[in-house]
Every structure is written in C-alpha cells, then in structure tokens.
C-alpha cells in the first residue's frame, strides 16, 4: 500500500499518549499499519496512511484515540452537504 498515498495532514486521527496503556489493540486492527508499540506506548508511525475507518478508536480501552469516521465517496458527501438523511453508497 506504500505506493498509494492520499492527501497529507488531513486525517482527524488523534492519539493521546498519556492515556495509552500499551495494550496494542490499535496495532492489531489498523489496516494501514499507522501504529507501532514503542516502550509500551502506541506511536503513530504513518499518520498520513490513516483512512479514518475508526477501528482503532472503537477498540481503544482507554479512549486515547479519537477519529471522525465516515464513508469517503463523493456522492455520499454531497448528500451530507445538502443536509439530507442518506444511506451510505458503497
């Protein structure tokens, strides 16, 4: 996946290392190897690979991770702009 890179510095992913208990759940659920466990703390080693799926945040027991998940297709986002209640498209 290294050859697929999307826009930089846009992901809403945030990690609060203070809260991290080093369980490593994020490293197991992330499909893009964004995290690495270093000295019993999660670290973001590839922030720009984040696609905001939300798996890490949902599976973090300490709520050290936050991200705004969503469906990333244009038609869906346009529908949210127009304010309609919509079903996802993919």
């Amino acid at each position, binding site marked *: 996946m290294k050859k697929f890179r*999307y826009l930089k510095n846009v992901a809403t992913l945030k990690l609060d290392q203070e809260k991290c208990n080093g369980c490593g759940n994020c490293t197991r659920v992330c499909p893009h190897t964004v995290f690495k466990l270093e000295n019993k703390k999660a670290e973001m080693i590839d922030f720009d690979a984040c*696609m905001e799926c939300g798996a890490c945040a949902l599976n973090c027991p300490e709520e050290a991770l936050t991200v705004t998940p*969503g469906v990333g297709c*244009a038609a869906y986002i346009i529908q949210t702009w127009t304010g309609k209640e919509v079903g996802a498209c993919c």
Partner: protein
Amino acid sequence: MKEDNCGTQNCGCGPMVTIPMENSACREPNQTCGGTADMDLNDEACCGPSNHTVSNPFEKPGYKILPYVKRFHHTDNGTYPVIYNDLKFKDKAGTVFTRFGYNRSHYKVSPGLYCSGAPDENSDVFVSANYKISFDHLRRSLKGLDAWILVIDTMGVNVWCAAGKKTFSTGEISTRIKNVGLDKIVKHRKIVVPQLGAPGVSAREVKKNTGFKVVWGPVYTKDIPKFVENKLKTDNDMRKVTFSMAERTVLVPVEVMLVMKISLIIILALFVISGFGPGIFGIDRMVDRGSLISLFFLSGIFAGAVVTPVFLPFLPGKPFALKGIFAALISTAPLVYFYHGKIAITGLIAMLLVAFAISSYLAMNFTGATPYTSPSGVEKEMRKAIPVQLTSVIIALFLWVFAAF
C-alpha cells in the same frame, strides 16, 4: 476428521441421526454400516439397493435446500447446514452478475450458524457478513478445516462497508451469538472476526456482552489456513490491505453500471443542446453535433470509471479529481488527433471540457471504493474540485452553443 458416509462414528458434532440401511459399498469392511444423515445431499445412497424415488431426508415442505449446502449436521443443540468448500458454477456466475451490479443489494445468505467439514465443541468459530461473496470467500478458504461459520446479518453488505455503516457491529455479533446459543455449541470462548470488521466491532464490548473473546482474523480469507496454522495469530502481512490491479479492475463493472442511467439522461440533454444554432433548432445539426459531443462525453466516462481505477497508481497527482483529468487526457487523445482541424477549435475545447469534468468527478467518486482515502481528504478535495468541474461544464456548454453559429 475424515469424511465417511459409512458407519456411525462420531463426527464430533454430537449424536447423528442414523438411517439404518444395508450397505454394500462400505470403504471399511469391518464396520457396521449405516447411511447417516450426514451423507451428502448429492450422494447416491451408498447403501442397499438404489431407490431413486426416495426424497432426500432433509426435505421439508416449504423449504428449499440451497446449492451450497452439502448436508446437515445434527447436534444436541440443533441441526446445522454443512457447506461445500468448493464454489460451483452457480456461485461463480452469481459473483459475476453481482460484480456487474445485478441484484447486488440482495445477494445474501441467511444469517445463522453453518458448518465447514465436521466441527465439534472445540472447533474455531469464524464470523462472516451475510453478503454472499464474503461468505463464498470464507467457505472456500476453510477447505479442509472443521470449523463453525457464524453468519451475521449485515443486510447483504460486505464486512468492511458494513462495519463502516455499523451493521457489522458489536450489537449484531452479540445478539447472533446468543440467538444460535453458541455457548452451548462450543466449549471454548473465542470467535474469529475479520479484522476489517473492527470499525464496527468493539472486542471488549462483545466480551462483556457474551463472554466470547474476539480474535482478529486476517484481512484476506486466503490467509486463513496460515492463520489457523499460527494458532490464530495474524502476522503483519495478514493485517495489511492491498489494492492490486486485479482488485481495482473487478470494481470497474459496478462503477460503469452505476453511471449508466444518469449518462443516458446527460447524453439526451447533450443532443438537445447540440440542436441549437442558426435558425434556432436543426434536427440534422442535433444528430451530427450531438453524436460528436456524446462521443467525447463517453470517452470521459471511460476515463473516470475504467482508466482511473485500473491505472490508479500510475496517474499523476494525489487528488483523484486530478487523476481523472489525466485519465481523460489519455482517453480523448485519439479523438483529438482525429478531429482537430475538422471542427472549430471552440467546439473542440467545449467537448474536451465536458470529458475532463465528467472524468474528474467520477474519479473523485471512486474514492468511495478505495481502501485508503480518508473522508476528510475526500471532502477537502471536493471543496476545491467541484466548483472547477461545474465551471468547466458551464463554459463548455456556452462554447458548444456558440460554436454552432
């Protein structure tokens, strides 16, 4: 466990219903023979004088046995279908139709518990979405393994998309575990959930609700044999998503089918606009110019829905809207080569703008089908790209009408 239609040896699934029959074709001569309710549905009775008029023992009024069901397992807690691990023609044809968008929203499997091979109380439990293609991938990868398949209701949507929409969820898994009484069927307390289900599933909540521990399985079902060999551990490669040319190409038919209807409407509108010119409206002009601009429009569709997905990493730029423009440059090149000098330059520019705009939009929409674009990124690029795409279309239409005079 070896499958054997002869004998009544325990398959590990609790007591089996035994249909006593004489057996003349037993593989192990010393055993007492008796056809069991575990025999394949398609097997001719191995025992006794063949009697083709007898209905198969699993028939029930009002029910239909599906082609991927091999036989049924009877346990203390219920009867469960055993699936074929090989895909049949019907399964493969179903996949192709679905990939082309036909019946795509209804390509489902009934939620519940299924068997691969002859699972027992110690066998692993694999959770699947009830999208038939997901289910097919899983059963094929479980070939040779005795395992339980717990199909949850994702309304016929694949694991990852369903997890994103929260139908592949903590709640659905928890409810399904309770509904099938999984705690009575297996002794252990763990279930294998595909890693891509994680956006919808909180492992600790499932544990809290049901007592079952979630073990994250590999992203791709093809890695399951190795995952089982590793004692249910994924290695780094099993956790990574890929997006190969083959994976991108299978998405093309649906991309094309999804834009088909709106494209026909747009083409109709293009024909109407093409009719305007000196003397207000001309039918000949409508047909001639309408076909020409439609050709460029279709070339733009081809660029956005075919060239972009297939050649994605080779197209320059990170924003997909930009990749779409490059794809359209390629797809319209032969048309430009053929038509330049034959039509007014304003007309040519108008047609190119139409092709670029549609390709750029479709490429941008393809972000929804890729496994690496973040919604925040998509929204960011859309805020810039959509005004440009709309402006191009408006300028194009003005130029096109202007070129007719």
